[in-house]
């Protein structure tokens, strides 16, 4: 059992490490790194599913009859592309955040936002009272 499932367990640990980075890190770029790791681990999981012991890469050649399953490979090719697209967009947004706030630390940003909102609400209540 241990040998049969060992591979999956490793993947789970990797996934969780990635997820942990995403959720615990305060630095936006590091969050994206975490996302990347999380996704890549899921990819490894998919590919592990498709492996057949003793099989080879799914390319037709004479004399070979046992192949690994090509379908997960296709799915993961697509998923990798999705991943890099997300990464690029995420980075673009964090760059813009940096330009707008001067920082990419989540805590600092939310502090600034909080101040902002307090100002807005206080202004609006004052005006409403006046009316």
């Amino acid at each position, binding site marked *: 059992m241990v*040998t049969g499932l060992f591979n999956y367990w490793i993947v789970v640990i990797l996934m969780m490490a990635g997820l942990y980075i995403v959720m615990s890190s305060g630095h936006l770029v590091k969050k994206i790194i975490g996302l990347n790791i999380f996704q890549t681990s899921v990819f490894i999981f998919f590919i592990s599913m498709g492996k057949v012991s003793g099989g080879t890469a*799914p*390319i037709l050649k004479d004399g070979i009859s046992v192949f690994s399953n090509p379908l997960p490979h*296709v799915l993961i090719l697509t998923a990798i592309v999705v991943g890099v697209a997300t990464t690029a967009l995420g980075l*673009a947004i964090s760059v813009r955040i940096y330009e707008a706030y001067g920082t990419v630390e989540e805590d600092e940003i939310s502090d600034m936002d909080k101040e902002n909102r307090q100002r807005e609400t206080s202004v609006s209540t004052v005006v409403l009272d006046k009316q």
Partner: protein
Amino acid sequence: MIVATVFIIVKLDRLMTAVMMMGFFSLLSSCIFMILDAVDVAFTEAAVGAGASTIFFLAALAIVGRTSKKRKKEKTLMPLAVVICTGVVLIYATFDMPYFGTADAPIHQHVAPRYLQESGDEVGPPNMVTSVLASYRGYDTFGEAGVVFTAFIGVLLLLGAGTRKSGLERPVPPNVKVESMRQKIVLREVADLLIAPVLIFSLYVQWHGDYGPGGGFQAGVIFASVIVLYALIYGIVPAQQLFPPRKLAYFPALGLLLYAAVGIASMAMGGNFLDYGVLMPDPHDGQHYGILIIELGIGITVAAVMINIFFSLSERSL
């Protein structure tokens, strides 16, 4: 080892190193993919994870700074709890999974055999991944091209490339990184040597996808990384002169349209969307040419998108 790498990343505050480690992680996973017979995936992961993503990260870090701050303890407890819960669910699930590598697992029984046994006759290319990717699940791949294109539009809308007139007409401020690279003669020489073969290699990957690992996507990324290499060494301005962003911005759209055009052509010929078989009198030829053209479409889209995104990101740091 791969686990160790990840834990190092968890702890790291120096983001530069974290990114490097991430690239390393990608490279390792790509090795794992290789071991697991997923050559195409390994190829892609190496090109994208270790290549393109890392470069994007570096370009972004150049703007936002390289260190992250430690957070308070309380803020890390909640995520930890969530992560552990999720992990437990996953581990719980694994107990009912077929053992790794089992040949008679259901996954290998139902749909896959047809790909394995008949794709050679039905579609043609010996590389089954290509057949599935481009033909059986060509619609997914079309969607994938759509994802890349969407990301491109997103980055362009947010950061803008070429539209800012920054690259060409603005006087280049002294940039430490670029300057220092230029002076390193060894690097330059090596790069000069590399660029041409890699370009050719990318074309090979593009056209050879039918037979070996590779295809439009990998080719596109490799092509793009050549340009990025060029830009890193000679500076972004000459690179942009070579590939003016304004014109480059048309290419992703063109690639996507090329892909769709094949599909629409097959609709016009009386088949379903992306049914290449009807394109030619002989369905085999139809499949063959259809796949070639859509791979080209993907290649164009991906290469242009990657270069564009890199330009957009690095332009900002100028």
